[in-house]
């Protein structure tokens, strides 16, 4: 009986309007609320903001705390013209709507502004509206009112930083500026009734083959281009020959905001930039690549852009950068170029000015209706205290009119601490997680909009819609979950649908709830680390093992087939018990998954293999790369996969005579040949040879990883002569490519060899110094840079070595 009554209450509360109406959110589903019994009424009271006025205390309070207050800053910009009054009428303001609207206007009324976007922005926005998953909560038709009451700038501002306007929503989708621009253009498409959705991004380009004279600007009028087309990028790749040519780019530059804009043209040889037919940058010189900048003040919107580039002979290059009020110096992105623009013209009229008396009436009404309980407004009085929840009686509420019994039911349940699963469900409903995520058979993407989600990789339904969250706290580590929820981790790179970023405190409470509800004993028992086991795991992941490389990328390296989840994340992400369970029984645990069952029997051998993969994975992205992954990138990054890779180079802060040695174990070092010293140790990515191998080279290189130490020089002396300046006399190399560096100091000869070794703490380095001739004094110390140095497990100290003796130093950090 209580269930029915409470549900009635819920429906009554929902009928009051809530906050969904503004952006067309569909009404909450009473059936899903029913799952929250006996706390359904509490949940509805939270989402409908009853608890904002009527304080809830007792055990249920923390689970149904009031949602953050909504600031009313710029409400007039969002509800322009008569829209604000209409909205307030339907909200809670009743006959005070005019007065409160007047107050919100505060005597000023700012006009809405037209905006210019690329002509095809609306069609891109429409695609995003489906792919990103907006459709899970918003019906497209219900968003139509936006075009009638606000402008592009407001919508973009909201999409970029939703929490400034709606801190109660989990709506931060980390949209890039161009995504926000396109999505807003789609939502406001009614402001451009005659639009043409043909692709219009980029610039027109032409290449001319002409005889050039020095750095003079050639006349291209009447010259027939050798080739032409449309491009996203301003560079020299479109040239039809290498010498004596000119390139011309023309189109529109979409300036995102008004202010001072600095444009930089870099070129070899000459280049010119015009904006609105005025020459802005002239970088005319027959010389190597160099940059030239100029600053101009521009309004937001589309400006005519033209660039001419000329090349006489030799090497050629061209780049265009900009810096604006809120943009750091960076290449002008392709989203800022358009060959055709579209104007979005707001339709709402400017509201008339209001007098002080009306404003005062509004302030009185604002106070009387206790709007401040749910809304922040500058200058408004703090909210009044209303009767606490426990004292509520039917008939005194401004919205609900049902009988005493309903309130009694709600009152009763408010005294019961909600079970964790109820609290979790309530929280998931309050933040609308359930619109996308199924859990334990309820929630998830509505069948009607499911088709709008796209599959990028061929991995079935799992690659299309947001994941089922059943058992999430059993599967996922709590820390991972928290980082995922705040947006610092993403595992499903194949999913177009986007997860919003939650505020830190909310993410923490979700992570804790999932853990409390789903965790099981034994979830976190890890197999013990062993270096050989890790290498066995590396082998199993590879093409000659269980061939995980086919579907799983690793540390940014692409999988051979579809790009499933990145293996480098799985140790941080998955609890060990689930990891083993999943590998051994994937198809049983999730019918329909594309993850195959590799181990037909759940025996000791299978468990040992799974543990080996787990141990390998514990090294994360720094783990040695399994067979089957290709080298990273097409560039010059050196990526030792099978043998050590040696790179002779200038190293920053060391000398111009160094050898960087990269290992497939992903522990690398740099040996300074000039000073006969081991100088750097690092883990992860090795080094980019472009500074040595491209163009004129001679760049000072650094490791590609910050996980590194710079060692203090290790003094190695001739014990009998106290001579301390060692000189490198050459190298030996083992059959598998590892170098040993040989040096002379005084009358002594010694060898220095460095071997990375896998440990549970990541790669450590074992350095062996062998005395070939004479008597050596090695002035080892327990610390070198930030690295600990040990000899046989004890802190390192000075050692003497006779000919034939050697010493092993272990470096870790």
């Amino acid at each position: 009986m209580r269930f029915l009554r409470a549900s009635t209450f819920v429906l009554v509360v929902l009928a009051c309007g809530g906050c969904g109406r503004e952006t067309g959110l569909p009404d909450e589903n009473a059936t899903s609320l029913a799952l929250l019994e006996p706390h359904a009424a509490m949940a509805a009271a939270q989402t409908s903001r009853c608890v904002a006025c009527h304080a809830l205390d007792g055990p249920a309070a923390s689970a149904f705390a009031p949602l953050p207050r909504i600031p009313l800053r710029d409400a007039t910009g969002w509800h322009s013209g008569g829209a604000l009054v209409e909205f307030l009428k339907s909200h809670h303001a009743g006959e005070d709507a005019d007065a409160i609207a007047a107050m919100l206007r505060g005597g000023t009324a700012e006009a809405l502004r037209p905006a210019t976007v690329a002509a095809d922005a609306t069609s891109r926005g429409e695609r995003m509206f489906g792919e990103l998953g907006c459709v899970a909560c918003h019906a497209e038709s219900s968003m139509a009112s936006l075009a009638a009451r606000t402008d592009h700038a407001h919508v973009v501002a909201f999409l970029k930083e939703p929490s400034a306007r709606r801190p109660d929503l989990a709506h931060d989708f980390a949209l890039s500026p161009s995504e926000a621009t396109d999505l807003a253009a789609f939502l406001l498409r009614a402001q451009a009734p005659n639009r043409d959705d043909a692709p219009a991004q980029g610039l027109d380009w032409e290449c001319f083959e002409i005889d050039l004279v020095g750095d003079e600007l050639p006349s291209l009028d009447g010259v027939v281009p050798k080739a032409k087309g449309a491009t996203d990028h301003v560079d020299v790749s479109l040239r039809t020959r290498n010498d004596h040519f000119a390139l011309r780019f023309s189109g529109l530059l979409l300036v995102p905001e008004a202010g001072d804009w600095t444009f930089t043209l870099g070129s070899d040889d000459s280049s010119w930039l015009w904006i609105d037919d005025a020459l802005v940058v002239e970088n005319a010189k027959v010389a190597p690549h160099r940059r030239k900048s100029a600053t101009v003040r521009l309004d937001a919107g589309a400006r005519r852009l033209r660039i001419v580039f000329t090349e006489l002979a030799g090497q050629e290059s061209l780049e265009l950068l900009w810096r604006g009020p809120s943009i750091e110096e960076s290449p002008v992105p392709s989203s800022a170029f358009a060959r055709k623009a579209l104007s979005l013209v707001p339709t709402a009229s400017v509201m008339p000015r209001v007098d002080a008396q009306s404003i005062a009436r509004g302030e009185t009404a604002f106070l009387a209706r206790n709007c401040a309980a749910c809304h922040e407004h500058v200058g408004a009085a703090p909210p009044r205290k209303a009767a606490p929840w426990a004292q509520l009686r039917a008939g005194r509420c401004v919205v609900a009119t049902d009988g005493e019994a309903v309130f009694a039911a709600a009152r009763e349940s408010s005294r019961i601490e909600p079970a964790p699963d109820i609290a979790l469900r309530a929280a998931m409903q309050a933040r609308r997680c359930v619109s996308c995520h199924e859990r334990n058979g309820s929630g998830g993407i509505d069948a009607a909009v499911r088709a709008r989600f796209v599959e990028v990789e061929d991995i079935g339904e799992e690659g299309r819609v947001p994941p089922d969250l059943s058992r999430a706290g059993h599967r996922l580590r709590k820390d991972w979950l928290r980082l995922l929820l705040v947006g610092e981790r993403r595992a499903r790179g194949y999913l177009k649908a986007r997860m919003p970023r939650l505020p830190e405190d909310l993410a923490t409470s979700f992570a804790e709830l999932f853990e409390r509800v789903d965790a099981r004993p034994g979830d976190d028992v890890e197999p013990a680390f062993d270096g050989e086991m890790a290498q066995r795991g590396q082998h199993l992941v590879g093409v000659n093992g269980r061939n995980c490389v086919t579907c799983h990328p690793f540390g940014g390296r692409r999988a051979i087939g579809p790009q499933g989840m990145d293996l480098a994340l799985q140790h941080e992400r998955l609890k060990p018990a689930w990891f083993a369970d999943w590998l051994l029984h994937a198809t049983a645990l999730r019918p329909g998954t594309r993850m195959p069952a590799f181990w037909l029997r759940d025996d000791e051998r299978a468990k040992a293999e799974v543990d080996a993969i787990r141990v390998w994975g514990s090294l994360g992205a720094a783990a040695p790369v399994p067979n089957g992954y290709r080298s990273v990138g097409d560039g010059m990054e050196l990526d030792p996969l099978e043998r050590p890779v040696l790179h002779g180079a200038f190293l920053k802060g060391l000398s111009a005579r160094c050898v960087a040695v990269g290992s497939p174990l992903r522990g690398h070092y740099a040996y300074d040949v000039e000073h006969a010293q081991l100088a750097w140790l690092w883990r992860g990515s090795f080094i980019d040879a472009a500074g040595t191998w491209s163009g004129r080279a001679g760049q000072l290189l650094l490791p590609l990883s910050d996980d590194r130490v710079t060692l203090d020089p290790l003094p190695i002396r001739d014990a009998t002569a106290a001579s301390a300046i060692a000189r490198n006399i050459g190298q030996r190399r083992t059959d598998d490519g590892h170098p040993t560096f040989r040096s002379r100091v005084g009358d002594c000869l010694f060898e220095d060899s460095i071997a990375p070794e896998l440990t549970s703490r990541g790669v450590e380095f074992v350095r062996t110094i062998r005395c070939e001739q004479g008597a050596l004094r090695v002035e080892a110390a327990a610390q070198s840079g930030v690295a600990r140095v040990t000899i046989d497990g004890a802190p390192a100290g000075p050692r003497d070595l006779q000919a034939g003796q050697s010493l092993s130093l272990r470096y870790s950090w």
Partner: protein
Amino acid sequence: MIHFVPALLSLVFVEPIPQEPASPAPVAAVSVEGEARYATIVDVPVPEGVVLEVGGIAERDDGLYVCTRRGEIWRITEPYSAQPKFALWAEGLQEPLGLLEHEGWLYCAQRGELSRMRDRDVDGRMDDLETVASGWVLSGNYHESCFGPALAGDGSMWLSLNKPFGDEPFGRAPFRGFAIAVQKDGSWTGECAGLRSPAGIGTAPWGEVFYSDNQGEWCATSKFAPLQRGDFHGHPWGIDSCKDPRSKAAHPGEVKSGLRMSEAATTIPNFRLPAVWIPYDECGRSPAGFVWDDAGRFGPYRGQVFCGDQYSSEVFRMSLERVQGRWQGACYPFRRGFACGIVRVLWAKDGSLWCGLTNRGWGSLGQSEHGLQRLRWNGETPFDLVEAKATTTGFDLLFSMPVDGASLDSLKIKSWTYDHHESYGCPPRDVQSHIAKATVGNGDGRMVHMALSSLVDGRVYSLDASAVRAAALPGRVAPKMLHGKAWYTRNAAP
């Protein structure tokens, strides 16, 4: 870009190993097709993924060894076949720009050391690298290249050290712009100062070491010169090191900019004029590696020097003669049309010429950015000017075939000199035309004696015999002149 006047710009801009062109393309007098009839350029297919930016070449019985600017040494077996096999023999070297086989070792100039390497266990990979000599420090400037070694007649090994162009992040390094000689014990001495961008260094059949240098500041045009102890070749960049006890070159004192070349030669102590000035864009642009043909591999040019050009992707010839105790001579066009600038040349076992290609950092004519080609002499002798030699009254011109004396009126002779100055390169100064009185000499009719009006020493003579005709022979059409051009550096009269 086009490279020019770096003396002023070098603080801001850096400069490639050879200078980039000051005009779009070198003068092309005859078609490449004409040259191709006599000498064929053969491609050596390089496997995908191998970037063969050749710095040095050595050939042994077990294969052709090529070191690259990426610090690798590739061992190429069956290099003459249509499908040569490449295997990585060594890696991790620092921009090696020369390779030499000697006493079972491969010697190699890395940036900061002379190394020698071998494969002790014969598994196809270098496993022993010995540092033969080091100690010329690097400032960290990209242009501090080290070329060589050239094995001199006395057993020493010579290296040429490029001067830096631009930043020196680890501080000024000594002995830049020096040629140094390394003894067997690894000790070394600075033999000559004043080099600029000495991309070629090699040994004459008689054991003397020569080098080629690239036009630029303090280098009026590209040149070819012997390296003799104590000489100063004109660039003052590194002359402070003359005060170092390891230097055998005396300090030339203050080097004034703007002297006429003959004045520089007489007033600057130990100033060494080149044996051959190589006029910019008349004969290539940026000379690099060279070899002597001491076996007549290339037809009638036995004893001459064949030099690769890093920009114009050609091989040109030079002849030398000893006049008043000094080498001087001329340069001549030979074969253009390679795929990329040539940095190294080496005689192949079959008598053709290996040409190692790269243009990274400066650009070149041709379609490729690196690679390996081979120039093969086809056996037929073209009608061409073989050699010019100085005489007391002018020049003797030796042609490859008897000439038609009636065509000698067509000889066009000009001469000029240069200024020795700090700015980049120098156009010909004081250009004069000469009236040539030429007669066909006795004997086989191939020699032409030529007396010149207003003959002055210390100048470059442009000898244009391109309109000279071959003597008609019964029953055959007289062949056309292939080039008929020479630029003779007449430092002195015999």
